[in-house]
């Protein structure tokens, strides 16, 4: 065994990492950008939380690995660790005031220094981050010393207050129209964030329930105790209730949020498709955007009067667009499907770029509009009703999500689903079971392309225009990320993933600049702490969190259980 590093070393290392991350977040401009949003009205801003969260977290981690038995010592280490982290920020302010950091970091502004020092003038202001760090370090130590029950209670309650404060705009829009009920709740929220009283009330409220329910298994349990017929009744009731809420959403949320809802919906559609390709069949497809683009462009070319090829209506062009997407899936699939793993990923990535560049090219400008794109795409119409607002389009998207979700759900537990899974597990053996892997892969590719093409047509209808820039590589990455975050192979996971990765950054506008940093952080955190995803498929959960040690599997890459370091 390695000799255990000294406590001093652990604390100093962790505190430096925490302070370093805080400086990084400050210099990329995240802190300043988030400082506009208050969590607690006129009190704590989102920026301040971003600034000190790394210090707090790393302090907690270092306390966990410090070997100390007495409470007062743990507390002392906490104070020290927090203070060291805070002093890094003080150092940043000090350096920033003597050297012109802006030459290199455009975000190293006086405004940033003001946030760090809380506006206290300089010599004294340097103490502010050190002091705040130390206080937070003490709190982290206190949290560590609490019983697991109280710790989880406090963490949950704080998380809820944080989320409510963050989502204040959204919650406000939803609640206000509800008359009396709305006015009761609305005093919990000020114009910026939650009121102090509201936050405390919410904290106590959540803490009460979370303390009471600690250790009890998830909410499904009371359902499981019911007789089977009642269980079914409850399940269907829940689905129906969810459906009714889904139907009312655009009215509750209003126009601005409805547009976000449409975007999330389109990504859910794509996610459901890519989930089949990657989650079920295990084919890493990085050019998924290609089929989305083909769906959108087919609708555009066939319906827009600008180019003058055809003046089909949306619904006339619709099946053709889907057919084109599936055809492209099969055409790409045929040569590519002999490749495995990484090679497949690279080729599909290239394919995605080829489609985008074709749409962008001058060569195809007469057909696809080049950089100018194609405008005046026909809106979908049913009878006399035209889907021309964000809210009406939502229903169209919702309809197709239900169809796609149903198809994915049914396929998963069918013979086709099993063959996909078998192929994912071991392609050679799958072939030896009599499975024609080429055909099976084509089926997965085609189905995935179908959903992606479908999402593309709706996207074209939503914008009324189609530009090559909408179909860049990041769309593929977004969809892939949302599947990973939601849980590979899990259908509800796609919905959760889309809400978190697509919905949340759009609701919090200031996130948009840091979107990919956010993705990166979320993905790394997910891989470390919850590799099975937010809403995992039951099977994946079994795979990754094994209670029973699997027999003879040397070199298996199940992530190690996160234990305390240095034990």
């Amino acid at each position, binding site marked *: 065994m390695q000799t255990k590093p000294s406590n001093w070393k652990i604390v100093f290392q962790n505190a430096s990492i925490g302070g370093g991350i805080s400086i990084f977040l400050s210099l990329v401009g995240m802190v300043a950008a988030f400082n506009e949003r208050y969590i607690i009205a006129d009190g704590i801003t989102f920026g301040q939380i971003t600034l000190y969260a790394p210090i707090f977290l790393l302090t907690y981690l270092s306390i966990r690995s410090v070997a100390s038995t007495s409470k007062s010592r743990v507390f002392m280490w906490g104070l020290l660790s927090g203070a060291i982290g805070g002093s890094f920020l003080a150092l940043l302010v000090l350096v920033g005031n003597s050297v012109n950091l802006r030459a290199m970091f455009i975000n190293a502004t006086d405004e940033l220094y003001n946030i760090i020092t809380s506006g206290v003038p300089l010599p004294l202001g340097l103490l502010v981050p050190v002091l705040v760090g130390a206080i937070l370090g003490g709190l982290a130590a206190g949290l560590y010393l609490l019983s697991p029950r109280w710790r989880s209670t406090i963490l949950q309650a704080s998380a809820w207050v944080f989320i409510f404060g963050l989502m204040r705009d959204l919650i406000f829009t939803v609640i206000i129209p509800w008359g009396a009920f709305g006015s009761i709740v609305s005093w919990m929220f000020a114009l910026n964030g939650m009121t102090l009283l509201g936050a405390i009330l919410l904290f106590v409220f959540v803490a009460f329930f979370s303390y009471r329910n600690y250790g009890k298994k998830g909410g499904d349990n009371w359902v499981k105790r019911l007789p089977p017929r009642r269980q079914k009744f409850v399940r269907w009731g829940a689905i129906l209730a969810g459906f009714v809420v889904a139907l009312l959403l655009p009215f509750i949320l209003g126009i601005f949020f409805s547009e976000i809802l449409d975007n999330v919906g389109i990504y859910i559609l794509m996610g459901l498709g890519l989930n089949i390709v990657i989650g079920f069949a295990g084919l890493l497809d990085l050019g998924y955007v290609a089929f989305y683009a083909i769906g959108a462009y087919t609708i555009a070319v066939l319906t827009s009067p600008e180019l003058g090829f055809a003046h089909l209506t949306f619904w006339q062009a619709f099946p053709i667009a889907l057919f084109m997407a599936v055809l492209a899936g099969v055409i790409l699939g045929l040569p590519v499907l002999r490749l495995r793993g990484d090679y497949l990923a690279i080729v599909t990535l290239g394919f995605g770029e080829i489609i985008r560049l074709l749409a962008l090219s001058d060569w195809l400008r007469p057909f696809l509009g080049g950089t100018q794109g194609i405008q005046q795409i026909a809106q979908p119409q049913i009878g006399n009703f035209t889907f021309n607002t964000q809210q009406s389009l939502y229903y169209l998207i919702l309809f197709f999500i239900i169809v796609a979700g*149903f*198809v994915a759900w*049914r*396929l998963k537990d*069918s*013979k*086709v*689903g*099993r*063959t996909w*899974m*078998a192929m994912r*597990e*071991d392609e*050679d*053996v*799958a*072939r*030896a*079971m*009599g*499975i*024609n*892997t080429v055909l099976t892969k084509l*089926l997965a590719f085609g*189905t995935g392309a179908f959903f992606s093409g479908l999402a593309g047509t709706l996207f074209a209808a939503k914008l009324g225009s189609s530009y090559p820039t909408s179909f860049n590589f990041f769309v593929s990455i977004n969809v892939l990320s949302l599947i990973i975050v939601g849980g590979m192979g899990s259908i509800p996971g796609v919905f959760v993933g889309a809400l978190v990765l697509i919905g949340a950054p759009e609701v919090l506008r200031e996130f948009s600049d840091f979107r990919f940093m956010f993705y990166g952080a979320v993905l790394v955190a997910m891989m470390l702490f919850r590799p099975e995803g937010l809403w995992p498929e039951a*099977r994946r959960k*079994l*795979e990754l969190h*094994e209670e*029973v040690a*699997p*027999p*003879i*599997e040397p070199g298996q890459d199940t992530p190690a259980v996160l234990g305390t370091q240095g034990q």
Partner: protein
Amino acid sequence: MDVLVCNKVTKKFGGLMAVSRVDLQVKEASIHSIIGPNGAGKTTLFNCVTGFYTPEEGEILLDGHEITGYSPDRVTKKGIARTYQNIRLFKNMTSVENIMVGMHPHLRSGLLGGIFRDPRTNKEEKNSVEEANRLLAYVGLKGKGDFLSKNLPYGDQRRLEIARALASKPRLLLLDEPSAGMNPSESEDLVDFIRHLRDDLGITIVLIEHHMRVVMSMSEIITVLDFGQKIAEGSPAEIQRNPQVIEAYLGRGAASGLGAPAAASA
């Protein structure tokens, strides 16, 4: 009637002759062992028969029909099933699912059937689950249908792999070292089990084996490979006396110095 015939099958890897002009006739409903030192080309021969490799020369016939160069899935549909030296189950699927994948050649439902669940598809699914459970019980894994296959103990994994192979209703079953990693009493059970397979289902069985006790006690015919070539073939008694076999296993000096029983316990 020979179920499987190999005529002068040759497979090269670069300059290495892994299998060189091997002839093999496997009689219907027999238990036929292939033995030989490590690297003799036994598994390569299996891979040629099951379509994983295409032999450079020679032909392979199943029931008199040529299957040389068929892809693995077509070979399976023709009626050959196999297990692997290092167990290759679908680890993250349950036992029942593993077996149901094995039934693939006999299932008719497709994409649309899976989505719309027409009565025929439903019936087929129901039947195959029942059949899978029956097979599980047959190999002695009753009640373990919902276990992820990787969580089964080693011996059960071997059994499950055989059950999965049986699910395709093969004419010919190729077992690649089925007793690997088993203790003597487990291997004895295995011998009984394989005999039952043949007697109950009339399946022809070809196995690669290293445990001489297993080989000698149940094989009707033994083929010996060495450096890719067939060096002997015959009944267990004949093989035990064959000086070439003894030489291949124990070296030149041993062939003259030691008697036949030495090979049997090798």
